């Protein structure tokens, strides 16, 4: 609608209309965008508040969480100890192993897509990556449970549920993450660098090894860190294959536990306000801190990349 105003039509000087002064579109869109700030703040508040109740409310000494013994209730007449070390170490170790398994494959695939693949291959691998990402984690977990664990049971003569099973399932899940970030890093290396190398008479592999990879290293590292972050935070798929044995991991073929698996298992069975439940919240808080630590690492890597360019 034409803005009703007191000015003479056609004059360029006129007061702002009510609508213009209010600028409703700007306010409404701002509120929508700023909602995320509120969500983060509230989420952090809840997690932190509930996470410290173990110490604040139930009086458990803070250092106890570093114990290797997890005994949340006194069945078996054992003293109650809330040692979280098995879970922390479990998360970190399965995440590291998954990264070790996935990285060569991911970087290789990314190199393939960036440097070697003809167009038809690129048009297959790109959607394939997206499908990989899209498959729900429970499906990976179910696959691990019904195919991988029995296979490991037979070939390793063990229970099957193990760190290895968890790491293999996770590596499938983080492979597309690492690949796409690494691919991005490779494609942003300027073509002139490659040309300069080729003009000196080197082979493609020499160029990749001595020029491309060093130039893209911080981008690839970012991808690996993001993959690890995803692995650390994955819950259901890991829980299905890891064995859920609340002890410090003894070997990659042995059952173990992680922060996410224990939360998944126990949350429904504990009562709010009780120490066991509060310990789970503390685990959630630790998980959050690990994730934020990774975010910080990614930022630092990003800054190094800017400096290097």
């Amino acid at each position, binding site marked *: *609608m*034409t*803005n009703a105003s007191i000015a003479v039509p*056609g*004059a*360029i*000087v*006129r*007061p702002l209309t009510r609508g213009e002064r209010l600028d409703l579109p700007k306010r409404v869109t701002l509120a929508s965008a700023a909602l995320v700030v509120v969500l983060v703040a509230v989420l952090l508040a809840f997690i932190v508040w509930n996470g410290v109740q173990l110490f604040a409310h139930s009086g458990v000494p803070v250092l106890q969480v570093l114990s290797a013994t997890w005994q949340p209730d006194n069945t078996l007449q054992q003293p109650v100890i809330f040692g979280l070390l098995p879970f922390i170490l479990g998360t970190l170790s399965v995440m590291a192993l998954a990264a070790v398994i996935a990285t060569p494959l991911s970087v290789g695939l990314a190199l393939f897509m960036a440097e070697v693949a003809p167009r038809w291959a690129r048009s297959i691998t790109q959607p394939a990556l997206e499908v990989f990402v899209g498959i729900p984690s429970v499906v990976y977990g179910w696959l691990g449970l019904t195919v991988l664990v029995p296979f490991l049971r037979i070939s390793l003569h063990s229970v099957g549920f193990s760190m290895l099973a968890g790491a293999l399932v996770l590596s499938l899940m983080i492979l597309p993450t690492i690949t796409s970030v690494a691919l991005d890093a490779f494609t942003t290396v300027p073509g002139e660098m490659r040309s300069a190398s080729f003009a000196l008479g080197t082979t493609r592999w020499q160029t990749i090894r001595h020029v491309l990879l060093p130039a893209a290293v911080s981008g690839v590292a970012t991808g690996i860190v993001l993959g690890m972050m995803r692995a650390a935070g994955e819950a259901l798929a890991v829980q299905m294959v890891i064995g859920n044995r609340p002890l410090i991991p003894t070997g990659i073929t042995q059952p173990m536990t992680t922060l996410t698996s224990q939360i998944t298992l126990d949350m429904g069975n504990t009562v709010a306000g009780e120490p066991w439940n509060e310990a789970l919240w503390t685990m959630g808080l630790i998980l959050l801190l690990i994730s934020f630590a990774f975010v910080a690492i990614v930022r630092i890597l990003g800054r190094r990349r800017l400096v290097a360019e």
Partner: protein
Amino acid sequence: MSDGIIDGPVPEVEVTVVSQQPAGTDVAGREEPAVTPPRPEPVTHPEPAAKIGAETKLEMVDLTVHYGAFRAVRDVSLQIPANSVTAFIGPSGCGKSTILRCFDRMNDLIPTARVGGKVMLDGEDVYAAGVQAVEVRRKVGLVFQRPNPFPMSIYENVVYGPRRHGMKDRRQLDEIAERSLRRAALWDEVKDDFRQKSGLTLSGGQQQRLCIARTIATDPEVILMDEPASALDPIATLRIEELIAELREAYTIVIVTHNMQQASRVSDRTAFFTMGTDRAGYLVEVDDTVRIFTNPREQLTEDYISGRFG
């Protein structure tokens, strides 16, 4: 050095057309080659120069434009008579487009831009407090270098302005659409399917005329053109130039062009700008086109016209 308003009857100028450089402008409207060519002769205007109205439509007084700390344009003062075509010429980078965009406050879109001095439309400073840029832009239209029709039908493109300003009546909109398309010399080519056909399916030259029609539809008083033909082929360029000559009757036109022959063909007055050693653009000379191209006052102008730099 600013020129005064033309007062009283101006003697008719009758000049015969001398053959120009072969093939005229090239598509990009590039500058003259370094070899000294024959100076382009002005073309006879269809109407005598006396048609130029005595009133000043647009005026700039000590215009200065900064981008952040960098001064891009300094101390430009000139007057644009109503119902005339004024060309801004000069080497690239000297700020012609920036100056042009001060007339419709399009520089507001650049966050670091600051405009000093006065820019007046009918005697009112468009940068004064209380002025709504939206209103200025209704009265002062802008045609861009690259045609930018919206991804809508030709009809929707043309009536876009009036619709957004509140006009809803279908018959009125249809009337405006036909009138604007006729004035932009596009009506005959699109009248059969302009309601369905997307503006993007037109050729470059047609798209530019569509953009002109779109501008005309808002009933402006001034039409600014920023190198309107530089992205077009020579034939399309000529059509645009013919169009400009027709539009002069109803509108005041200011056109930035890289192409001196175009300036001499199309404009009544020409303003020559250049860049100083401080990289700020400034006005060297403004005068009747005929005078600028035959007997300029400044040596710099003479040098530019004859291709010694640019």
